[in-house]
């Protein structure tokens, strides 16, 4: 059944073990920038985990000119056929939050694959006792695009909520 990683910003400490766990699993080494989940801290104290939100209309998959991206039916994750990806960046441009990442050191685009249904990031977050990332069932009524916004927009909203100042004062 498709799953989704719920992210609770209030509980995120910014320890970034999700990035460690993700890159160890996918890259075999610690590589924060190549992690499929990344915790942004544009403003000190405002830590925002950002990863693919599996929008129900999958704009990234639709935008891919080489059909390198496809939806994994069992988990709902976006998968990358690495041989087909030409790093054109169309998927990034189509994503509401520009979440997929293209790195010069990598041959294809990086997108969360939900670890086949048992995501490492959520496991490590639970082991740490923060539970900022929790695996839930994907429910058709949820507005997943709310979580697909870019880190800067989420940060600005969160500044208003937590610091109660105009985001321009700190960002």
């Amino acid at each position, binding site marked *: 059944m498709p799953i989704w990683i719920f992210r609770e910003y209030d509980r995120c400490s910014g320890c970034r*073990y999700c*990035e460690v766990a993700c890159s160890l699993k996918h890259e075999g080494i610690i590589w924060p920038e190549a992690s499929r989940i990344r915790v942004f801290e544009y403003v000190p104290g405002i830590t925002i985990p950002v990863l693919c939100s599996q929008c129900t209309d999958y704009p990234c998959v639709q935008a891919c000119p080489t059909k390198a991206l496809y939806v994994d039916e069992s988990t709902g994750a976006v998968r990358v056929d690495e041989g087909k990806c030409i790093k054109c960046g169309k998927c990034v441009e189509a994503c509401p939050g520009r979440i997929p990442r293209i790195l010069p050191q990598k041959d294809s685009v990086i997108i969360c694959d939900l670890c086949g249904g048992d995501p490492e990031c959520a496991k490590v977050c639970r082991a740490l006792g923060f539970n900022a990332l929790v695996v839930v069932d994907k429910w058709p009524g949820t507005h997943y695009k709310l979580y697909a916004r870019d880190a800067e927009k989420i940060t600005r909203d969160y500044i208003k909520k937590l610091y109660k100042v105009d985001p321009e004062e700190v960002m």
Partner: protein
Amino acid sequence: MPYGFTGKFVEVDLSSSKVRVVDVRRDLYRKFLGGRGLGSWILWERLGEVWEGLDPYSPDNLLIVLTGPLTGYIAGVRLAITGKSPQSGGTVGSTIASEVGLELKCSGYDGLIVSGKAKDPVYIFIHDDKVEVRDASKVWGKGIRETHKLLLRDVLPELRKTPRFGEPKEPAMIYIGPAGENLCRFAAIEGKYAHAAAYGSYGSVMGSKNLKAIVVKGTGPLPPVYDVVKLKELIYKAIELVPKKAPRLRIWGTGQGPWRYGRDLSSIPVRNWQEEYWVEKSYSQYDLEVYDWVKRYWADYGCPLCCMKVTVLHRNGETVITDAPDYELLAYEGSNLDVWDVRDIAYLIWCGEELGFDMINAGNVLGFVAELFERGILTKDDLGFEVKWGDVKAFERLLKMIANKEGIGKVLAEGTYRAALKISEMKGLKPEEVLKYAVQAKGIGIGAHGIRSGLDYPPISYVTSVQGGDHQSVAMLPLDAPPIVNEVWASLADSAVICQFNMLGGLDLVFDALRAVTGWNISKEEWVNEDAKRILTLQRVLLLLGGPDVYWDPRVHDDNPPRFYEPLPSGPKKGQAPTKQDIEKLKKDYYKALGWDELGIPTEDTIKQLGLTGLEKALVRIRKRLGI
């Protein structure tokens, strides 16, 4: 290249804006690991010949920013900063929780060496292999929060210059405030809003180089490790063990400290250490729970513990955003100044950190001033206003005067030790008449852990420490005494460059991780008997070389401040204090354990055994200066 290292340092000469990448000799990594150890050796190699005459504020001093073999791999990212210290004249491995350590390694460098002095204010921007010296005139003079904002705005467009590649994560930064720019001898290097590399005053060294900030973004992976399977296992072990060994730190941070050190252990500074005990006005862990202004967890990369919390206070029309006060600052801006409302303390801490102060040493200076005022040595005429115990407004005003070096601020900016000497001169008093209120060791204000009760830190903690008053690296006997603040273990944390609190998961975990990352089989015994001794002996020699404005004579300055010989006036250990004879004996034992002679000067044999070839030359100079 040894596993876990990039093998390269980037060097920036600010006088010429020239950048070069240098290889580091492999044997140095094994001998000194990184951080504090390697930094001290680089300083000796490059500046050893001229050490005593070298003004820490001259362009010839180096500012060295280092990672270590464990940085980024396990438990709590950290960054070590060193150079010739304007406080001690030696070296301090000053560390800060900062992702700059991670980003440097991901950029392909184990460290950064800054030399020279820029003509105008600049900052250094490192983005993978691109290293630039950039104009900082827009941020010069600005406080910490504004500096962070403006620097981010300055570099983000560049990091985002290819939007179709996705959003790059923010860079990591360290910077100084006005206190560093104006060369206050207790200016810190700050990170985020409330992190600081404080002891050693490298903030003022940055200021002397016209260097406002260092901004780093690396997009590569961490260097390959010897055994990644084992490392992964240890990472998860640390996640499980560390928070469980210290659950109180996750819940309250070190803000739990005032009760523990004030009530139970009687080692908290109260009114410039006139007392070390109090109960009735106590606030501590349970109080912090009900403060709705403590908002949220706040860890840095790789920290399973999370002792920090985000604090937001709306006060006097300003929004204070800082760390929920930790023990050291609760003590130094609280009980030490007779300030007892925890919101006042948080506010005062925030004011000082915005200005870029080391708030332990700032609290030490403010307490010293308040006592001199109480005793009539400093008057309203000297200060411009009254500085009474508990007067938050007066302390805030004083901090601003010090940061800008206005009026008496110019004298106080020199730190407790040097200010005491200047004030005695100003007032026509003998130095000891003012020094008796200065609670410092080797020019560095002592951290908020007293030694008199005998319940907390041991009596020679600060007497023979190579980092003076640094409460996180103190002398202990036996050499392998377990507390993590023992300088034998502190030198491990500061050289492998990880967070000391994360050593609470057990030292075995640290040595296992060191093995998994580097492949070197370093045992605990080997560390105590060789590696730690090597680093401490090197630091000791540089400390004894000292200069150029103050020099240390072990016969005089390897000692506690006079206040620590005054019997405790209150608390469970009322009347207690160490005697000079106790200290003399412990000193000698400590020197002997480290292979130093009866005056605490390392012997030629020790130097040879530890492989510190070349350092013998310095011994001759030290003996000559001391006339022995």
